[in-house]
């Protein structure tokens, strides 16, 4: 290792390892009066960034834990799993597993699944844009479902949980259901599957309706509409269709290419 690399690794270790009282001695830059205070300033800045980043990505976990506990969690997580890249918005993907493994949070077992849904919402906020193609829906009237494939909103995901994660998310983000109603679903551990997608530029979440999780999983796997419907007999497609278009969950319809590779980004055609 070069002298420069060794110097840099020592400073990074002093900042990112669990806080040490003697960190300043380790990096031999404490000769000046302000050196020790400066190192503390860098450490404090890291902790502040950690808290800000987690609050931005996990607003519901923040509400559930309270701001003070979230701050302590952010500091612990910062040192346990420091950022790996220079875009802080990418940091925090490991929080659900970190929460699940936390002995201190064992009494709040639903938190990890709420965090999984929040991270999905966080990541789809920056997913590639995709325009809706309303004219393509005419294909549903004229073509065999075996020859069609649905185009879903950017970042669409279904996340199954043993906890009422969709109700908890909705209660905290938009007040429907109420926190009391979400809490009533929490006590008996009502399992819910959350559906997340981006409605235009706005990330959205709701509970998946009957059969919808299996249906969307099949669509996301690239299956033809007929195949997807077969895998989700509980779904009333006619009942699902209009709200899915209105909420921008469903953007369009394309012809199914059974042997073709799935494109990275669908381009609806008609």
């Amino acid at each position, binding site marked *: 290792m*070069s*002298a*420069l*690399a060794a*110097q*840099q*690794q020592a*400073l*990074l*270790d002093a*900042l*990112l*390892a669990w806080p040490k009282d003697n960190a*300043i001695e380790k*990096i*031999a*830059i*404490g*000769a*000046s*009066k*302000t*050196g*020790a*205070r*400066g*190192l*503390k*300033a*860098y450490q404090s*800045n*890291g902790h502040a*960034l950690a808290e800000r980043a987690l609050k931005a990505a996990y607003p519901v976990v923040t509400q559930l834990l309270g701001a003070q506990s979230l701050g302590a969690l952010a500091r612990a997580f910062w040192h346990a799993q*420091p*950022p*790996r*890249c*220079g*875009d*802080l*918005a990418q*940091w925090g993907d490991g929080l659900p597993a970190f929460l699940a493994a936390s002995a201190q949070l064992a009494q709040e077992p639903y938190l990890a699944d709420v965090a999984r849904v929040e991270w999905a919402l966080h990541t789809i*906020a*920056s*997913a*590639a*844009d*995709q325009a809706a193609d309303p004219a393509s829906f005419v294909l549903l009237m004229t073509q065999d479902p075996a020859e069609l494939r649905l185009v879903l909103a*950017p970042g669409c995901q279904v996340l199954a949980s043993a906890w009422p994660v969709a109700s908890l998310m909705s209660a905290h983000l938009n007040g429907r259901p109420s926190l009391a109603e979400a809490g009533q679903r929490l006590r008996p551990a009502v399992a819910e599957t959350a559906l997340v997608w*981006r409605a235009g*530029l*706005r990330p959205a979440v709701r509970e998946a309706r009957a059969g919808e999780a299996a249906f969307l999983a099949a669509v996301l796997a690239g299956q033809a509409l007929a195949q997807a419907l077969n895998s989700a007999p509980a779904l009333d497609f006619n009942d699902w269709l209009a709200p899915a278009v209105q909420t921008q969950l469903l953007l369009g319809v394309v012809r199914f290419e059974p042997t073709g590779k799935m494109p990275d980004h669908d381009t609806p055609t008609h």
Partner: protein
Amino acid sequence: MLESSPGLSVPDRTWVGLGWRQPHYEAVLAQRPPLAFLEVHSENFFAQGGAALAVLTQARAHYPVSLHGVGLSLGSAVGLDGWHLDQLAALVQRIDPVRVSDHASFARGRSVAAPGAIVHAADLLPIPFNAESLDVLCANVQQVQDRLQRRFMVENLSSYVSWPAQANEPVVGEPDFLSALARRTGCALLVDVNNLYVNALNAQINGLAGDPVQHCQRWLDAITPADVAEIHLAGHCHVAADPRDEAGSAIVMDDHGSRVCAEVWQIYQHALRRFGPVPTLIEWDTDIPPLAVLLDEIAKAQALIAGLKGGAT
């Protein structure tokens, strides 16, 4: 007589831009104040799509945009992050910025806790001013310029720790170090005048004799005018000593949380006299005030440029 500025393209109406942060996204797009450019943190727009990118694209229709990064870690001995450079290249391609910059700092290195892993401290950590560090910085800046196919700008830091010179190592001053970087790579320098003053004030706390303003002016005098492509102005804060803490020395922090102080305006005027009119940015990142306050600071900078003998209008 004024020495000429390298003058990357800016509108004639003004030389001064705004560090555009989220609280003012809506107001700037609605009011469209006369600004030379908007400067944003590149990493905030590392996205394939979504609301943030849509806002920046909208702004680009009305203003030149300068992309100012905080995470490239140009001084890192372990090299650059290819993913980060890919994201920046995609953003440059999309926005066609008037300038692109980052700092003479490092944050990226190998993890001690997890051997083989890379960590990033998400901060602007100082690099030593020596030959090895210059070689690393030059190689990384050259890699960025090769990838972006454009001249890059590198900013001087405010730093709160400093590396002691190694034995048998010649002492290199920061302006000489940055000038060598510019000479070897052809990159431009982004001179943060407030950072100079913060460093000078902390040096004074550490016993450096002399007037901090004069230290900054001498720093500027050691820079070749043709290397300077942008100037940053911001506020800082004085943190008092904490007598209960052994490590609680007084310190001056570059918090970008207040108006530009009188001494920094004075140093800025010295910079303008030496460099000529240079695109200038007002930065404010902490306790961000109403847009009118920032526009007032911008007007002050613009007035100083306009007041130069033969200066731009």
